[in-house]
């Protein structure tokens, strides 16, 4: 097992390290940012009242009882949301060292070299436990060293344990799905869907009645009440990890390699794939469909709480005042506009995934095979860019339409269908900008492309935190979203819209020019 483990580690350490730095960093930059933001207890109470509304509960979970200290504010606003990141970490690594390796024939190869099933499974587990333990240590250590007021050791430990166990839970869930499903795309897709469905489920049950939320692991994190009551007992549900590990092992031990318990043989008929765009659209069908469904779900879940939001804001003068803003518009509409902004940032994710696909082609040296035919390289990248922009905008549009549909029953909101459509139009231009950036980075070098993802993550964090705590505007100025009008509370401003669109197209064209010239890996 030592040999196999060291081989796996050599293959994955860099990705794990990047995740540790990214996730650890993302967690640890927040406490100092929060510290001193609300210096008096009264201010924090006011903020807590702001957050105690259906929209925010859906986003970050129920407001914990007790005093709302900076630390409690941190755990409340971060824990559930960071759960997605920790879960994603577990899923990505688990899938890459299990089903993906099997698909590539690596598992067969190492078993033929005398490495046992026990060693393979054992090594996978050691990596899952080890990486989460390491991340927990980094977070616990970081929080403790920063030693910020109201961040107690016990709370730090509980935060680290909770997130690590959450990551491990999804690591193990992915291992199980890797046995059940016939290909790595499936195990990845289904575990990612579970991660998001548990989140969306919790989002609605947290608003309706938290008793129902207990099924969702995200809610276990809320129940820990980190930094207030520190209820360690809510770590117990994570004991299910042990059951899942046993199940994963049994499933793995009792099947043939490359076999699966659930098999679906779709499309028996030979499809007629006659061009590069067709080829890629066929390959990305699952990705695009699931993201479009996801965008619809996001729209529906936000839209469905608008009714409650209305009565809530009416009862909360503080919020009404906060949301009134400069323009003196309806605070509700102002709030909806901010939610739409966050949705638009999320909508750029599938777009970047589509541009990234050309790098999958390149890494697997299929690009080389393709470009040895008469298909020009730039034409391939160009297709990815255009398709990415179209799908990105379509996703935003779909979530706007479903938001409208779900909120039709809500009274007191005078946002028309046309307003929602204009919102989608408004956020089309930053989507193009992100796609253009992505194309430029691909054109320069595959290694650089991570910057596009970091920039998107940054935009999300800034706008997400902007909603909650109103962080400094300087941070927002580094994202294109800052310069746009907040539709529908404001009217579209075409000048910045066009400039952002133009920059996006320019970046994309530069990307094409570079891509044509650079060496293919």
């Amino acid at each position, binding site marked *: 097992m030592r040999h196999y483990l060291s081989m796996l580690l050599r293959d994955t350490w860099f990705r794990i390290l990047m995740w540790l730095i990214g996730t650890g960093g993302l967690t640890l930059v927040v406490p100092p940012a929060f510290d001193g933001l609300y210096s008096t207890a009264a201010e924090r109470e006011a903020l807590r009242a702001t957050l105690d509304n259906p929209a925010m509960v859906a986003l970050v979970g129920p407001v914990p009882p007790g005093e709302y200290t900076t630390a409690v504010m941190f755990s409340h606003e971060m824990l559930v949301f960071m759960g997605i990141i920790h879960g994603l970490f577990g899923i990505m690594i688990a899938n890459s060292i299990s089903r993906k390796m099997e*698909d590539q024939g690596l598992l067969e190869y190492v078993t033929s070299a005398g490495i046992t099933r026990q060693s393979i499974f054992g090594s996978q587990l050691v990596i899952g436990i080890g990486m989460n333990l390491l991340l927990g240590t980094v977070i616990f250590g970081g929080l403790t060293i920063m030693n910020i007021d109201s961040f107690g050791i016990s709370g730090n430990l509980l935060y680290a344990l909770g997130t690590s166990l959450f990551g491990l839970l999804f690591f193990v869930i992915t291992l199980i799905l890797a046995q059940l499903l016939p290909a790595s795309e499936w195990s990845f897709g289904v575990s990612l869907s579970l991660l998001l469905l548990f989140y969306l489920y919790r989002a609605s049950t947290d608003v309706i009645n938290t008793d129902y939320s207990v099924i969702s692991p995200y809610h276990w994190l809320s129940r820990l009440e980190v930094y207030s009551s520190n209820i360690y007992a809510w770590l117990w549900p994570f004991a299910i990890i042990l059951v899942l590990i046993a199940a994963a092992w049994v499933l793995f031990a009792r099947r043939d390699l490359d076999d699966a318990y659930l098999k679906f043989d779709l499309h028996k008929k030979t499809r*007629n794939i*006659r061009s*590069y765009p067709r080829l890629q659209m066929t390959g990305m069908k699952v990705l695009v469909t699931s993201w479009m469904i996801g965008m619809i779900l996001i729209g529906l879940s936000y839209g469905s709480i608008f009714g409650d939001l209305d009565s809530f804001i009416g009862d909360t003068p503080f919020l009404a005042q906060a949301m009134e803003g400069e323009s003196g518009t309806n605070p509700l509409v102002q709030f909806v506009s901010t939610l739409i902004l966050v949705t638009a940032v999320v909508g750029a994710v599938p777009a970047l995934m589509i541009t990234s696909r050309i790098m999958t082609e390149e890494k697997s*040296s299929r690009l080389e*095979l393709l470009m*040895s*035919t008469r298909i020009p390289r730039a034409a391939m990248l160009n297709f990815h860019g255009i398709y990415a922009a179209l799908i990105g905008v379509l996703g935003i549009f779909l979530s706007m339409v479903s938001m409208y549909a779900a909120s039709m029953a809500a009274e007191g909101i005078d946002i028309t269908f046309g307003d929602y459509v204009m919102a989608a139009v408004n956020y089309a231009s930053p989507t193009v900008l992100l796609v253009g950036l992505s194309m430029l980075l691909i054109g320069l070098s595959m290694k650089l492309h991570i910057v596009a993802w970091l920039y998107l993550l940054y935009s999300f964090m800034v706008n997400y935190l902007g909603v909650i705590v109103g962080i400094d505007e300087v941070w927002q100025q580094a994202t294109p979203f800052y310069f746009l009008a907040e539709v529908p509370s404001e009217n579209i401003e075409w000048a910045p819209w066009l400039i952002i669109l133009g920059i996006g197209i320019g970046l994309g064209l530069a990307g094409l020019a570079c891509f044509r010239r650079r*060496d293919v890996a």
Partner: protein
Amino acid sequence: MSMLELKNLTKTFGSTVAADDVSFTIDKGEIFGFIGPNGAGKSTTIRMIIGALTQDSGSIFLDDTNISKDRHYKDNISYVPGDVNLWGNLTGDEVINFFMKVRNYKNTAYKNELIEKFRLDPKKKCKTYSKGNRQKVALISAFLTDAKLLIFDEPTTGLDPLMERSFHEEVARAKSEGKSILLSSHILSEVEKLSDRIAIIREGKIIETGHLDELSHITRIEYIIQAKEDLSKLDELPFVHEFRVEGEDTHVLIDNDKAHDFLQTLYPLKPTKLQTLPPRLEDIFMRYYEGGRDGS
């Protein structure tokens, strides 16, 4: 009459000189073997021809036109990489059809013939294919085109001997149609039989080009001998190398251009068995470097 001409191609990756002043010419209707050990620079050279890499210096002419001046030169090239990766969710048939469509080629009768010949199950998804089967898909797609130059990078590494023969037949057929073929390999005997001419590359440099017969001054052939008389004195001769005894058999490597001298020496020793093994690449290098040392 040259189909492809490489002039002084150089490509470096960081401090590695992967191709160092590589030049050779492939004539029309010629099968050209490109031989060198792993890491010698074969794939790098080929990837410059297909435009995946841009050379640091030097130029490439296809049909006497510099490829940097002809945007459509790839219409005349068909390429199969050494390690073929395909789209896991597509069937072999779908992939072959795709390549036929993008290359605008329609001969389905020939396609079916090739599928039959290479014994490919085209209805299966590519992710279930072995390396050899993926290679077959790419080979079939390449043979189907009417490109004038076929480039195969280590084509037979994943094929079993029977399929290798089918491959050789198809290469011969392409040649008979006037196509030129570039075959790379790290095993000399694999391409030697097929090739009209070969080039040998090592550490990025072409060290020899020509027909294998013309290269006899750098090749050695292994002889396996049994004789009535004592063979041990052979070991002292200058053109005999790596003398060793294995049971009844005595193995020696003989400089190819000294075969005459060797056989004359051997005759009085009353040989009862004489068997030869084809020249191996390593032996060529051995002799090449010994020669280089002697000359310096």
